[in-house]
């Protein structure tokens, strides 16, 4: 297992470097001068001498490959550079924002897993009934509804109409501010999890050993949880891993709608203002999380299902 983990980690490094390179190149070829964005772009008047001085200070006159190498060198030392706009350390900005994103994604993932697995299992057990049809509709709706639309509906219902939860904003330690964003993220993902759970469970329920377990007189709860669900987990875990990426990308929109100071919003603002060090910092963070989650998912699947180990 250790060899496998090390091999996977080593495989991830070139992917990670390629991602940073692609982002660096993209941000440098799209039009939009970061120095102009710092000046008073709204009134549309810039001072070219001052811009020249700032460009020099930021190292923007250096050749692009050199700028990229400086960035990589910094990242290896844990330094993502300094934001053009706020002049704060990007590492510090990320440290401030990561907890918010992690809180809504983790909470969202937990809600999604609970709803998705429960609904999917019920669908499989009640296969062909109207409950099963409801599960299928739930899965399709969850996947099809864009998160900004879902977010606004939830905000309207729970904040404006019933005034149960705050509409927007963030107060550290107050979970009320996290419920609606997490739910928004969770509903889309839970649909996918429910669909996969349902089909995996249907396959398992058809197996001979299930008949054996039933004939041995085991309780249906034990059969479902210990035999069926456990054996249906590898595809479910894989899809949960993939959905983490969806959750992170959904966080960008969700954080914007709910005014949450997370990594997603930091990245969107930075892209609009061409604040390259922040964009790179955010991308490195998201890519790292994504690669790690994929790795953990694969390891989890191997631990749960020894057949994978044998096959590989």
């Amino acid at each position, binding site marked *: 297992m250790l060899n496998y983990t090390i091999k996977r980690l080593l495989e991830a490094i070139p992917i990670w470097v390629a991602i940073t390179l692609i982002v660096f190149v993209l941000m440098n070829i799209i039009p939009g001068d970061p120095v102009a964005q710092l000046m008073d772009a*709204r009134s549309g008047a810039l001072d070219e001498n001052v*811009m020249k001085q700032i460009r020099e200070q930021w190292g923007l006159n250096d050749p692009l490959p050199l700028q990229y190498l400086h960035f990589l060198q910094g990242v290896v030392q844990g330094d993502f550079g300094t934001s053009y706009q706020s002049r704060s350390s990007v590492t510090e900005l990320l440290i401030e924002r990561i907890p918010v994103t992690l809180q809504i994604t983790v909470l969202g993932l937990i809600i999604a897993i609970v709803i998705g697995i429960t609904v999917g299992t019920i669908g499989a057990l009640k296969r062909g009934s109207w409950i099963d049809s409801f599960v299928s509709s739930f899965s399709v709706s969850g996947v099809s509804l864009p998160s900004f639309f879902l977010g606004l509906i939830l905000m309207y219902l729970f904040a404006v109409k019933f005034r149960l939860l705050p509409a927007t904003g963030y107060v550290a330690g107050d979970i009320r501010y996290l419920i609606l964003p997490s739910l928004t993220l969770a509903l889309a993902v839970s649909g996918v999890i429910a669909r996969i759970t349902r089909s995996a469970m249907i396959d398992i329920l058809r197996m001979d050993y299930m008949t054996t377990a039933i004939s041995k007189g085991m309780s249906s709860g034990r059969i479902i949880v210990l035999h069926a669900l456990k054996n249906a987990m590898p595809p479910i875990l894989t899809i949960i891993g993939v959905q983490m990426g969806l959750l992170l990308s959904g966080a960008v929109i969700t954080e914007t709608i709910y005014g*949450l100071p997370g990594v997603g*919003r930091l990245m969107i603002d930075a892209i609009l203002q061409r604040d390259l060090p922040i964009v790179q910092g955010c991308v490195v963070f998201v890519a790292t999380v994504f690669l790690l989650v994929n790795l953990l998912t694969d390891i989890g699947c191997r631990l749960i299902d020894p057949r994978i180990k044998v096959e590989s």
Partner: protein
Amino acid sequence: MKRNNFRLLIFSILMVLFLSACTDESNPTSSTEDDATSSNEPTPGGTLVRAAIYGDPQNLDPMARSHGTSTSMVTWNIFEPLVRYDAVAGEFKEGNASEWEISSDGLTYSFTLNPDVTFHNGRVVTAEDFKYSIERVMNPKNASPNAGNLQAIKGSKEFMSGDATEVTGIKVMDDTHIEISLDKPDNTFLSVLSLPFTAAVPKEVVEEKGDKFGEEPVGAGPFKFSSWVRGSEIVLEKNADYFAGAPYLDKVVYKVMEDQTARDNSFASRQLDMMVLGDAQYARYKNDPTYGELIVEVPELFTRNLKFNLEKDGPWQDVRVRQAINYAIDRDTIIQTVIQGKAYPAVGVLPSSIQGYNDKVTTYSYDPEKAKSLLEEAGYGDGFTLNILTTSHPAFGLPAVEALSGYLEEVGITVKTEQVDFAAMTDRLNNGDFETAMSSNGGMTHPVEFLSRYFHSKNAGASGNTSHYTNEKVDELLDKASQTTDESEMIALAQEAEEMIVKDAPWWFFNYNKAVIVHQPWVKGLQEMPTDIDYQDLTKVWIDESLK
């Protein structure tokens, strides 16, 4: 039976949700009822929660960020400049300086500081603090985007290029007197000294905090910095020792909310006390029986326009073509339909809320026949294709361009549009990489500064005159206007220059933005602030708790 009960339950839940969506309980009690219990006497106390719609200021050090809305709406309350510009009355008033005098040749500005002004750390603000703070902005090591605004000061070039260790034009006479000399007269300079980036910052705190000063700023303004959750909210609290008297509000909370619908929902759920309205929301709130009465609106100092790039070859090089385009478009109808009435038709360059506004300027009215004959005269009777660069902005972006395209097509001009984001638009305008572009320009409170920025040939390109408009007579008039010490002469010269600019039509003059704030019934003292409606004087705002 069980199944039917379950279906009934689901149906009932859905019906409750549907019916709740059809009723509107979000409005507060009507203003008529409120008025019965409200008092018009300001009372101290309370918290104002307002929306900061242009995003996080990112850095509250006034030196570090440009004088844009997202920053200044906060820093104007933390820092105290030498003078304050009362945009509602259209005059300068006391700030950190209790008196000021401009020499008869317009070259020297002498300020007497109010001895009662203290920083939030308790130390008295001295003349030396202003010298330090202004030089800090000009210091090339600090790479301040505001440095360019201070180049009128004598000795600034030497200091900014590193050839001098101090700015010779800034002289500290004693603790309460400071003199600032200019290279040549510039009557727009006092406006610069009213902006937050020229306010005093305490040297000892700046040096102690280093880069963190922008995260925990200390100034001498009416409110003290309290806390900041980046990207979420900034909290200021009352400066009880403010020299001009403590503000009424105990606290001001700026909620960073860029999404319009989120602001709407927060306002409806009473999380917000006030917010600036976008074009799409304006008509809805204006027609609302409650909130229609709780709206503050003003023509803002921004002029939306379609600018021609006079550096690029094309039919628009002919003044008759530019005039024809001004005649061809029915701006009033576009304002009523696309912008839902949230703008004032532009007659010229200067918006109606600026000193020197001239509603008698020879302008263009909708006259497609005249447009056709001018095009015919210019040799473009068969039309041509015009490329318009635009953004997605709802008021002066793609929707407006699509509307004006219809009018241009009626006189034979085919329009091709290209939509980019604001950062790309800034780049393209600065580099002259466009034929025509829709944008919004302004923010200056001085008419000569406004006109010079966009039409003086010395500012061609990124400095503001992105149309590359050149007219020697206009340059001459604007130079004379900026150097005279006679205000009425300054206005007459500015109006003469504006008349020539409008005639030359380097822009299609579209509209002046109508800035609108909607507020809850308990918020009192908001003003029609033309510089930017977000720059409310919060020392005048108070909360009537009895209406909450």
